[in-house]
């Protein structure tokens, strides 16, 4: 009888404990949705410091570091940089260059919140096998931002607005999100005088890689132009089947002018991954310019042949200085679509009618001759480029 009472007491206590636990659990918010995290990641900006002139480009690399080799197939990042920077391209998706080497092949979203100086974008890996989806530390994309005003600031990643998705190793699980636990940004300094050019965001050049020493001019940009500094220029080196593209190659204004009185810019560049020494063709493209092919040094007109005749060496001092300044880079691709057409004209026309101006050292896509004012000269330059291009193509 005494034993029975003891059991009865024990069960009553047990019941009360169970009830109390039940009440506590009911009071907690229970997550019943799908979408729990299956891993953790950090999202960081590289490099951590940018120095650039007004009008120059900052190639902001977005990297992800996933823990425990979690595979990442999509990143939606909210990158904030303030009002001194702006996306390079009007077509925002073109400002975000996915890192195809690590299977990121599509930009599905690009939205610029100008009032807060933030860019939201989503880069994904579509149609890629799980085995090829990257894990560990890898670059997701490069966001090209243009420096539009003097000053300093920071580039930050909004942790709440940044989401990472991936391939859950547990195939039966619906959870594909990764928790963003760490974000790291960068700082920038925008100077007026051309400043230090931000290093090219590629792997460093090796000893076998070629040096490219060059002199170029931009159509219509005379020596006295105040708004033609820090223009981001893309260089493509081609030889046989090898093709390497480099953005933001160094360019310094010299005191020299070409036969038309246009300022000559020079640069020297150790091209990572380009080891071809002969039969080289180079393509230059300015920020509002058509891509121009150079097949030989001293070229003064359109190079209307396949391939190229340029020779290079892997030593800066012995690689020849290639002078392309007598055939300037054609201006007029205002919207950056690689062509000159009625859209570029219609973009420039109203600004030329209003003589829109910018401060010395500033950047305006429609100001083709770097005079700090949009006017008829820019329209004339555009028409010249159109005719030159039509002559070449048709």
């Amino acid at each position, binding site marked *: 009888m005494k034993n029975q009472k003891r059991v009865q007491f024990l069960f009553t206590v*047990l019941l009360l404990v169970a009830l109390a636990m039940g009440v506590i659990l009911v009071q907690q918010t229970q997550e019943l949705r799908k979408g729990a995290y299956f891993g953790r990641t950090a999202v960081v900006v590289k490099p951590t410091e940018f120095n650039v002139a007004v009008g120059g480009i900052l190639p902001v690399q977005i990297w992800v570091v996933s823990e425990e080799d979690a595979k990442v197939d999509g990143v*939606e990042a909210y990158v904030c940089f303030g009002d001194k920077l702006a996306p390079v391209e009007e077509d925002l998706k073109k400002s975000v260059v996915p890192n195809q080497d690590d299977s990121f092949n599509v930009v599905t979203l690009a939205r610029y919140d100008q009032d807060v100086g933030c860019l939201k974008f989503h880069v994904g890996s579509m149609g890629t096998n799980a085995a090829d989806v990257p894990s560990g530390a890898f670059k997701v994309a490069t966001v090209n931002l243009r420096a539009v005003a003097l000053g300093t600031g920071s580039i930050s990643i909004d942790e709440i607005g940044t989401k990472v998705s991936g391939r859950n190793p547990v195939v039966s699980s619906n959870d594909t999100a990764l928790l963003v636990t760490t974000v790291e940004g960068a700082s920038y300094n925008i100077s007026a005088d051309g400043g230090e050019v931000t290093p090219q965001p590629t792997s460093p050049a090796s000893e076998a890689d070629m040096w490219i020493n060059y002199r170029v001019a931009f159509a219509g940009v005379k020596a006295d132009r105040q708004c033609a500094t820090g223009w981001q220029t893309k260089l493509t080196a081609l030889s046989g089947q090898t093709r390497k593209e480099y953005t933001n190659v160094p360019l310094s204004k010299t005191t020299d002018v070409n036969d038309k009185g246009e300022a000559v810019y020079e640069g020297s560049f150790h091209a990572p991954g380009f080891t071809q020494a002969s039969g080289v063709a180079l393509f230059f493209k300015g920020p509002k310019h058509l891509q121009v092919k150079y097949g030989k040094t001293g070229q003064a007109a359109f190079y209307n042949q396949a391939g190229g005749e340029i020779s290079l060496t892997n030593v800066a001092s012995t690689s020849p200085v290639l002078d392309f300044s007598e055939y300037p880079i054609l201006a007029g691709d205002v919207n950056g679509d690689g062509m000159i*057409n*009625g*859209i570029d004209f*219609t973009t420039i026309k109203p600004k030329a009618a209003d003589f829109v101006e910018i401060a010395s050292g500033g950047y305006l896509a429609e100001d083709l001759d770097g005079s700090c004012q949009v006017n008829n000269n820019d329209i004339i330059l555009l028409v010249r480029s*159109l005719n030159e291009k039509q002559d070449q193509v*048709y």
Partner: protein
Amino acid sequence: MKNKDIFKVLIPILAVVIIVESILVVSRLDRSKPVDVIIPEVDDELTEEIVELRQIEGKASFVFSVEDQNIEVGDKKRVTLEILPKEDFNLDAMDLYVSYSADSLEVSGLLEESGLKATSKRVSDKTGVVLANFWFMEEGGYKFEAGKSVKLMSFMVEPETAGVYELSMVESGDEVTKLVSSIGDEVVTYGFSSEKLIINAEN
């Protein structure tokens, strides 16, 4: 007494059930933590993206005309391209690209019509394209009125071999026909329709 016995059995069973359930719930909570954010719903946001260039549909038609579509090999006929506006609109720029079979047709004598002056014009037998870029410098652009067709350009066509050939507006590829206008600060393109011109080349 019998009732008392039932309680004695029921209460322990109930307790055990509640404990088991509690353990299950607790373990589930642990597994799904933390869960503040779920997978990004990209689809919803895609609609928010800033589009490249707005296209306004169906403003005009391009019409080819020729005195006679049956042309003898070695004979020349002038082909005219007109625009037929469906409604009133202004254009700041009009890039016209007409494709033709350069292997079988020779095109020459390209002229602007209606007093229009092309910024650039070419006949390219290399690419089989007749092109004319009309960029209107005047403020507000060039006004087209609904129903009032405007001749834009004309050119001579001479078949070199017998066959059926066509001329058409280029609408795909890098260089395409464009009607461009500005509405406030926005640059827009206007959609258009066009018909091909069939040339019957006879010996």
